[in-house]
């Protein structure tokens, strides 16, 4: 038995992958390095020169006002935002929160910019759908931190690989829901668009995307939430923010600070989730 199991010597898969990634990194460093540098600078700029420059009080009020209008002029979320954000500030995690926020915003934006067009392509062609579906399945079933490995390999440590890992992990819902939303548009409406002589683009922008909007927004909401969870995990590769506070508290067995920064993440998650959820409902309520 033992002999049978060891007829084939260990296949050097790990070595192969290492070599391959090494080769990729070397070969495409002309591509990766500038991304790392410029992208990193951009995010530093967003955090330090934009978000941190807004006085916390103003920022909190701004969030509360946006929450108030997004939720259809209800006070709940607005009040929660005020208390929650004030608490984060009170505990001294303001800058960490801004770092996390920057990562989430940038990662989500990129996910949407990349995801929606791919979703459209998938909805338009059976072949594209067949190709992308298993890739998306694969992307979503891998444990999130696995994406940290190639991200680190290509981009070192810090914010940039965090965003890249988050991009891989969080884009699939936007792609899936865009595809689904467009495919769900009633056949008669698509026929109506065609029957009146629409071009493909007219059909897409005047009928399909507006009709699919609530579904796409639901996908984007998921993407944003996944980005947030990934950004927290990305602290393991040095992405700054609330996640790295949790991580360092864990490493030093400091229950108290770990708890507080954990609560900060939850507060942020709730605010972002409710806001993006209402973004998808907003149009419906009006009309």
């Amino acid at each position, binding site marked *: 038995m033992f002999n049978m199991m060891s007829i084939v010597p260990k296949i050097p898969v790990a070595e192969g992958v290492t070599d391959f990634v090494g080769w990729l990194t070397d070969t495409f460093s002309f591509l990766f390095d500038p991304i790392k540098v410029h992208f990193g600078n951009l995010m530093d700029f967003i955090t330090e020169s934009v978000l941190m420059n807004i006085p916390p009080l103003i920022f909190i009020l701004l969030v509360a006002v946006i929450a108030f209008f997004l939720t259809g002029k209800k006070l709940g979320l607005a009040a929660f935002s005020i208390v929650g954000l004030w608490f984060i500030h009170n505990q001294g995690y303001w800058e960490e929160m801004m770092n996390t926020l920057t990562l989430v915003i940038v990662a989500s934006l990129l996910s949407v910019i990349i995801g929606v067009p791919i979703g459209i392509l998938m909805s338009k062609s059976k072949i594209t759908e067949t190709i992308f579906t298993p890739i998306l399945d694969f992307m979503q079933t891998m444990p999130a931190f696995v994406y940290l490995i190639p991200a680190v390999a290509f981009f070192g440590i810090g914010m940039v690989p965090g965003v890249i890992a988050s991009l891989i992990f969080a884009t699939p819902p936007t792609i899936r829901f865009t595809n689904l939303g467009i495919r769900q548009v009633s056949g*008669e409406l698509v026929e*109506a668009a065609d029957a*009146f002589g629409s071009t493909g683009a007219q059909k897409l922008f005047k009928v399909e995307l*507006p009709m699919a909007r609530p579904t796409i927004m639901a996908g984007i909401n998921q993407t944003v939430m996944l980005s947030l969870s990934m950004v927290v995990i990305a602290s393991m590769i040095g992405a700054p923010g609330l996640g790295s506070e949790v991580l360092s508290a864990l490493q030093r067995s400091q229950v108290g600070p770990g708890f507080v920064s954990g609560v900060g993440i939850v507060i942020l998650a709730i605010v972002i989730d409710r806001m993006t959820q209402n973004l998808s409902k907003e149009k419906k309520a009006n009309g």
Partner: protein
Amino acid sequence: MSIIEVKNLTKIFGKNTKQALKLLDNGHSKEEILKQTGSTVGVNRANFSVEEGEIFVIMGLSGSGKSTLVRLINRLIEPTGGNIYINGEDLAKMNKQELREVRRKKLSMVFQKFGLFPHRTVLENAAFGLEIQKVEKQEREEKAKKALELVGLGGYLDQKPGQLSGGMQQRVGLARALTNDPSVLLMDEAFSALDPLIRKEMQDELIHLQSKMKKTILFITHDLDEALRLGDRIALMRDGNIVQIGTPEEILVNPANDYVEKFVEDVDKSKIFTAQHIMKRPETIQIEKHGPRVALERMREEGISSILVTDKNRQLQGYVTAEAASQAVKSQNGDLKEIIKTDIPQVDKDTALQDIFSVIYDSQTPVAVVEEGKLLGIIVRGAVIAALAGEGEVENNV
């Protein structure tokens, strides 16, 4: 020239279209072809033409291929074979650009479930066709408004379709189709989703609009009553084949086969059949050349108790009874004019069966069918009852 002409138009759904086509040519049925090739025959070599200003109805049971046929005409479904000529140009040979132009300018479609865009207002829906053509906002909204006023929705411009009743939504659908000012309207079961009363109303409205606009309308329905009300001509479909084309009259009176007959069976015959469908050839004598003796002889021959009298132009003069004729013969009075009676009920050839029934019920004599005084035929009581019961064969033996 016909505005629409369809030649051998065929659609086969599925992969083995070549094999299926071959089987079709060899006369295999839709069912056999599905079994052998897995392909569904949607439409099988349809041939017909539609004249300008005509309402052409395509009727058939569900699954008979009506929707497929109408979608082949604007190529929402790509034909497997055949030609579609619109004003003489073959749609089947057009590229995408040319096809779009035809759809924009010549063909508009009205959908069964209305196909309105829920995120657009009534006005924006109606203006959609012109928006696609990049017509300026002001101009297209003006035209859309006119179309909406035409269908009685001038007061609902800013509503969303979801706020309107079914009947009103379909008016929007109709207005959207009319805004483009197309020459042809394609209406796929456009009124089938409406309740019966609203449906009648919409049919009347369509007839009324049509009398003003003189569009060419291709109207799809599975409802015979609707087809009879609207159609100038009706094409009957079964399993992808067109089995009969004709005026409502022709379809009802001379059903081409059992299938059509079955379809027609349920129609309320008292409304559909008219005098000319149940009349018989009358026995007549001519007032100028025949006397009581001939009259008596003819009645004896035919075994009847009275005979109709016409002049040489077949204008109805009256009738004589056998009794009066035999007395005249006995008394040597040779003149028909003395004994002719004129109290015979007369109906026009287009009188409906139900109206004939009330006339004949009170009458001692048969009823004469006339057209401008000219005798066409005669109706006996039995024929009316038979026709109403739906069993007597309805023949046109004049």
